[in-house]
């Protein structure tokens, strides 16, 4: 089996592929936003107020404020993951959209890059919606929270790239259940979305610390509190590494799948 390991060859037409997805999204905007937001919003409000009423302050803030930073990251990850799994798989495999785009002067690398950036773009929208809710509820007023927006983009690219690896390997939609059961769910529970990671046994803490979501939360949580995150470069570096390695791996696997 030969693998094409060359770096991505991108042309300006990749923007047109991104734009195609935007046009579809504009038609289905309301259900799409609802789908991406309902889940994280109700988790944040329900657990934030419900469990929050039973909880002491964490990090010196009410539980719902603690949960808010986790929810931003969770919503961003969720949105990028769903788009790069189910929607990208539909376009690649079910509707053959990618095949028809490749008959035009657009390369597969352009398509995979555009799909990843599209999933990241959607995830930024989801993250921003949660951020607006946080502002609206008065959970944070810090101007530092604006830094969450570029962070969402980086997270979006990282989680979209990771999901795209699964899409490249998938035979059907059922395959994605493995990804959720074996990676997404453990990651959400081990990365400090709902409770501080320090409450976990050391082994689980170590696993959590290797996962990208925990690094995103280590950046997002101080920003919500109005503080500059510690070890910001380390966390950004880990996220960037997941993004770059994930994207290259996805690209190599999609090339193998569609161009051989």
């Amino acid at each position, binding site marked *: 089996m030969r693998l094409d390991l060359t770096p991505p060859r991108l*042309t*300006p*037409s990749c923007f*047109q*592929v991104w*734009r*195609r997805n935007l*046009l*579809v999204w504009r*038609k*289905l905007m309301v259900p799409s936003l609802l789908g991406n937001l309902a889940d994280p919003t109700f988790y944040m409000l329900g657990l934030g107020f419900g469990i929050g009423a039973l909880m002491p302050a964490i990090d010196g803030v009410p539980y719902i404020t603690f949960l808010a930073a986790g929810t931003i990251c969770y919503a961003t990850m969720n949105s990028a993951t769903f788009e790069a799994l189910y929607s990208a798989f539909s376009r690649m495999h079910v*509707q*053959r*959209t990618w*095949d*028809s*785009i*490749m*008959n*035009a*002067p*657009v*390369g597969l690398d352009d398509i995979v890059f555009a799909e990843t950036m599209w999933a990241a773009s959607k995830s930024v929208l989801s993250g921003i919606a949660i951020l607006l809710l946080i502002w609206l509820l008065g959970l944070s007023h810090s101007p530092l929270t604006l830094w969450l927006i570029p962070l969402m983009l980086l997270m979006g690219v990282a989680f979209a790239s990771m999901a795209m690896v699964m899409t490249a390997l998938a035979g059907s939609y059922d395959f994605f259940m493995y990804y959720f059961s074996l990676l997404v769910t453990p990651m959400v529970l081990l990365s400090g979305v709902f409770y501080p990671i320090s409450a976990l046994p050391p082994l689980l803490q170590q696993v959590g610390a290797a996962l990208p979501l925990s690094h995103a939360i280590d950046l997002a949580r101080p920003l919500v509190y109005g503080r500059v995150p510690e070890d910001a470069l380390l966390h950004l570096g880990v996220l960037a590494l997941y993004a770059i390695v994930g994207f290259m791996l996805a690209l190599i696997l999609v090339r193998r799948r*569609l*161009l*051989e």
Partner: protein
Amino acid sequence: MLSLQGVRKSYGGREVVAGIDLDLRPGECYGLLGPNGAGKTTTLRLALGLIAPDAGAIHVLGEPVPARAIAARRRLGVVPQADSLDPDFTVAENLLVYGRYFGLRDSAVHARIPGLLAFAGLETRGAARIASLSGGMKRRLSLARALVNDPELLFLDEPTTGLDPQARHLIWDRLKRLVGRGRTILLTTHFMDEAERLCDRLAILDNGRIIAQGTPEQLVAEHIEPHVLELFGEGVGQWLDAHAARLPARFEKVGETTFCYLRDPLPALAELRQAGAMRYLQRPANLEDVFLKLTGHDLRD
């Protein structure tokens, strides 16, 4: 327009394309015929630069492929085998979005859409959803989409598979019009009547090789006697035992039917009229006879 020289491609040790030479002349409709698995679609994918050949050279509209495949595809139109229209868009939006992939401005595509819809017989369907179109309409829209960049060369992969006779004739009519306007067409098909009607020249592919090439008339004249009698029903065996040796004909038995290929059908017909229960059909030889002679009667799955 399109040239392939000694092109080869293997998958897992099996040579799917085993040394193909092709040279399309401007303004002709060229057919690639072959049973399933003969290498037709792989040849198209090679010509599009989607896969790289193991050996040989490919040029599309003067561009070396796959090295400059993107530049070649800019001037190319493709109608794929499976409909890959965008179900989330209307008919007109499908054309608009596809035009963007060619770097066309929206204003330029908008100006072209009415003409494309008229060509496809979809004038009143611009705002329709894809799900509301019939199979024939979808295929015509796929054809219109392939023309959005006003291509010099068109690839069509089994353009009428799965369509009813009316829809097929409509597609054929449009393809003839395109050739009339000076476009060059490469078409794959396994319908012999389609190839005979549309193609100026064609190649018969089997096991990744071109086993015959020429105009439909040439191929029939070269490979097969001009007349065919198909014999079937009761008594064929006895009749053949009695007469076959005396008739200047070539016989081939396929299942229940015996094909009898001959230069002059009259003596055999005179005998057959007295043959009673046996049934027969007389017809001129066609491309299908050539095809079956060259590729055999075995089922290809």
